[in-house]
């Protein structure tokens, strides 16, 4: 599927500042949007502690 050049550019910048999700370092977890704005995370709930995304649970 074709993604817009703007999204690809944002993705590239975002990956550069994004932390690996398996870290437990909370200080790295607050990541600004590429335009500097903080976006409310629709996936965040207070009940959800950190865990390893998409892990192979075998």
């Amino acid at each position, binding site marked *: 599927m074709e993604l817009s050049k703007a*999204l690809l550019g944002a*993705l590239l910048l975002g990956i550069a500042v994004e932390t*690996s*999700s398996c870290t437990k370092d909370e200080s790295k977890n607050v990541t600004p949007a*590429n335009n500097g704005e903080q976006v409310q*995370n629709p996936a965040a*709930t207070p*009940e959800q502690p950190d865990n390893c995304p*998409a892990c192979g649970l*075998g």
Partner: protein
Amino acid sequence: MRTIYSGVACNLDADILQACYPLFEASKIEAIEWSFDALYKRRNIPDWFLQLLHAFANEGRLIGHGVFFSLFSGRWTYEQQAWLKHLSKVSSAFRFDHITEHFGFMTGADFHSGAPLSIPYTNTTLTIGKDRLARIYDACGKPVGLENLAFSYDIDEVKRHGDFLSKLIEPVNGFIILDLHNLYCQLQNFSVGVDEIINLYPLERVREIHISGGSWEDSIIDIGRKIRRDTHNDAVPQEVFALLEYAIDKCPNLKYVILEQVGGALHTQQSREDFAADFLKMSAIVKQAKGLPPETNDFLPKELIIPALVAEDEELHQQQTELSEIFETAAGYDDALMRLQQSSLANSDWQIENWAPYMLETAISIAQKWKK
């Protein structure tokens, strides 16, 4: 005409995203699967990741894959209620094409600490599973599916798994994810051929296939035996690609084929290139799929009544708690076996007397790996 989309399991993980980026750039990725319940404790999510999710969602190619609901927990928990609320919320924010979860119950006293392990196939577990799937559908309003489990205690369980899945999803007119690496684990760990097992699954209800890599573990109690585990930490074995070629034409309602790998295994440039090569190989197999008739099932329930009372079973809960505690604290196989024989699981529907010793050893290893 029906299209099968080649996609990746894509989460907010720098290593996964870096591995996927060249494929995004080349417009090769046709769908993404997002584990909507597996984000870190972060209140804010980068705008660019939301845009990525919406880009696929707007084309009807975003699928949600839950990890932590614990479908077969005997006791209904506050965390499960919160999980459903969360699912409802993300389903409003993102247009998912469907929602899936894993088979099994999560070991561990804490909701997010553990790994999914199997359950006895009884009327009690069937009732609980159907109840939970109905509630998942009620929360998301999308087709609901379940993934086949990689781990089984014995060969009889492997052979009965497909039939039990079929009964579970019937009321929600659901579908299954046929995880071919999970199937590969079963074939290897119980020395059976693919023909003996694959037709025991409801293949007309496969809407999604997963492929991934995994690892081998040496058994300590059965010297020379290697156990295949679904750890998602390596490239896809050739045998799993062969399973994909074999299975793809047997699944008339297949819509997605997804490549999974954990970010922790994608740190190096070489591993990322291998990931991209695996994706392109998978995509080429998908494109060769022949004679794709239109989908015959929309996988939406015609009529579904959500029971006012949540199905629960206290005895099952106690057994799961006891089993988790033994697995998580056992000093080894002998200790676990002795404690199981003295537990409420002895001479019960769990049929612990039939469990393959090396799979009991593996269950201990899995539970202790994911215990926090």
